[in-house]
């Protein structure tokens, strides 16, 4: 019996849940204005999120997946990504999208049942994928994008997000294995929010960390405190730099908690302990950063008040855009399937337009 190989998984945190530093902050975080920017974005996202849930409750939006409690991950990623990187999101990544210039009204259109929401007007997001619904399948698109970057010798990276549940899907592992085998410029970020609808993280896998799943692909996985935006941003940034410089993939497990229902179609009370939820609120990533900023006099109650007002305004404007956008025309259903629309589809479209008009 010989030991042929060994591994270890590390965990990163800078701010604990009281907003105290647990180690020296990385350079970017030593500039308070950077942290304030992150803070403002998280608050904006939460404002947006609250509003979106509300729109759904009042029948003005379809099923919506809230990102409550997970803002540090999605904003942290967005702030670490470079303009030329490509982002493959799953459906809770509003923070990243916002920082890539995707409009809130586009996100609302998406959940409002309108494909035009995926036609991002932002130049920065023009190569980004839209939300991926079939769990984990985006991992392979991201790998393919990274393959293209590698074949073209570009100094860019692809970042793909997914939930903890997604790590049970075969396509997740296939992407992990490929990323390792080909040393692709890719970063996998798992939003481990402890639940996949009603299935708790523990029931999903007996791996003690999600991070260790990277070992199957022969590359590094690590855990970060997903409620500490400094840790998220720092580790994601380092992984992106590594990827861009040809040093291969990284899997980052961001440990957090889904403070919301799975979606507006879900009722977490059916399966989730109220005590657990209550404790999880103590780790609220927004509160945490705010405590740090307040304790260090980088933030004030009046600044907060002003910010909330601004966020409301921005969100209301987006909602207005969304609500006042007319339903897409019928022909949109046909016009985007093919660059060269086949004759029989042209005929069907004509038929639909005729039938639709009676």
């Amino acid at each position, binding site marked *: 019996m010989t030991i042929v190989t060994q591994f270890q998984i590390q965990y990163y945190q800078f701010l604990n849940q009281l907003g105290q530093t647990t180690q020296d902050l990385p350079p970017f975080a030593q500039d308070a204005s950077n942290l304030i920017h992150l803070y403002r974005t998280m608050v904006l996202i939460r404002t947006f999120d609250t509003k979106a849930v509300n729109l759904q409750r009042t029948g003005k939006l*379809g*099923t919506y997946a809230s990102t409550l409690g997970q803002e540090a991950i999605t904003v942290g990623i967005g702030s670490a990504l470079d303009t030329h990187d490509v982002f493959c999101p799953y459906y809770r990544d509003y923070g990243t999208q916002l920082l890539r210039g995707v409009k809130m009204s586009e996100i609302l259109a*998406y*959940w*409002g*049942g*309108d*494909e035009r929401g995926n036609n991002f007007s932002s130049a920065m997001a023009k190569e980004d994928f839209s939300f991926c*619904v*079939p*769990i984990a399948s985006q991992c392979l698109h991201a790998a393919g994008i990274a393959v293209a970057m590698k074949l073209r010798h570009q100094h860019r990276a692809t970042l793909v997000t997914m939930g903890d*549940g*997604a790590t*049970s*899907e*075969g*396509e997740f592992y296939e992407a992990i294995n490929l990323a390792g085998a080909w040393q692709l410029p890719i970063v996998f970020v798992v939003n481990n929010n402890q639940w*996949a*609808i*009603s*299935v708790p993280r523990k*029931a*999903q*896998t007996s791996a003690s960390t999600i991070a260790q799943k990277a070992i199957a692909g022969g590359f590094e996985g690590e855990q970060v405190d997903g409620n500490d935006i400094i840790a998220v941003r720092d580790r994601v940034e380092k992984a992106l730099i590594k990827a861009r410089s040809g040093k291969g993939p990284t899997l980052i497990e961001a440990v957090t908690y889904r403070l919301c229902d799975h979606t507006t*179609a*879900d009722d977490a009370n*059916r*399966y989730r302990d109220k005590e657990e939820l209550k404790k999880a609120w103590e780790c609220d990533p927004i509160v945490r950063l705010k405590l740090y900023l307040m304790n260090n006099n980088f933030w004030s109650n009046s600044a907060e008040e002003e910010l909330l007002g601004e966020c409301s305004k921005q969100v209301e404007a987006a909602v207005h855009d969304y609500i006042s956008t007319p*339903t*897409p025309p*019928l022909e*949109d*259903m*046909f016009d985007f*399937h093919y660059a060269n629309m086949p004759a*029989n*589809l042209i005929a*069907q*479209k004509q038929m*639909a337009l005729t*039938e*639709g008009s*009676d």
Partner: protein
Amino acid sequence: MAEITLVEAINQALAYELAHDKEVVVLGEDVGANGGVFRATEGLLTRFGPERVLDTPLAEAMIAGMAIGMAAQGLKPVAEFQFDGFMYPGFNQIINHAARLRNRTRGRLTCPLVYRAPYGGGIHAPEHHSEGNEAFFAHIPGLRVVMPSSPARAYGLLLAAIREPDPVVFLEPKRIYRLVKQSVPDNGVALPLDKCFVLREGQDITLITWGAMTHETMNVAKNLDAQGISAEVIDVATLKPLDMDTILNSVEKTGRCVIIHEAPYSGGLGGEISAQIAEHSLLSLQAPIKRVTGYDVTMPYFQLEKSYIPNESRILAAVNSVMEFA
């Protein structure tokens, strides 16, 4: 007796079989404490425990494939895919293994299982939650494919599917999960597989459909009475194998036919049925068969889904054009 919805009838059938056949096991994503995203498995975990009702990790090939191993051991797994659009990762297991295990081993190993999935559009759901995908499964030798259209048929056909010694893909039209209520005695009586149901007799035209579209079709048929047109309505119910006897008998009687389904036109099951009618009863046809179906496009996001799914006016227009043909 209380009246129940289609999804409650599914639940009732599952509970009945769990109670009466100890080999039956329910599995899938969120089928346990959550009772399934549509509540089809509500209460089953509490009543039958975690060895009969299994919440699985999130992986559909896994669900499809493990059910095969369980079935080969003599269990009768009833596996839920959470939505139609998430059956595809399981396609490899379904076609290459579930459908073939008996044949491959000359009957030594068998695969008595049911793959359940909510089917079709119309509930304002996100992308991939509204697929009309029965034609894929109905082309696979070794499978049965079943779609109920009422609470009573959901109950009776699901019982039959679970008891069938071979794999059954059981597609549940989610648009009518809660549309109507019916009193459905919980008597464990199955309905026959491999048979159509004639929902309404008529003399002038045969309307063939299945699943949720039976509702619009029945409405049209009733309205046709006022026009003096007597329409027969057939709910195909078992989509593989097709009960062509019932269909041909009807069309030979009426001489006219419209087929209605939600899935895309090209390669939809309507084509198969239409072709078989024309091949076997050509001389009985007094007019070309028409198909009223989804278009050859991906189910649009929900703002346009109503424009995609056949509606009563499209069905009526087709019926009128077939009736007017001379």
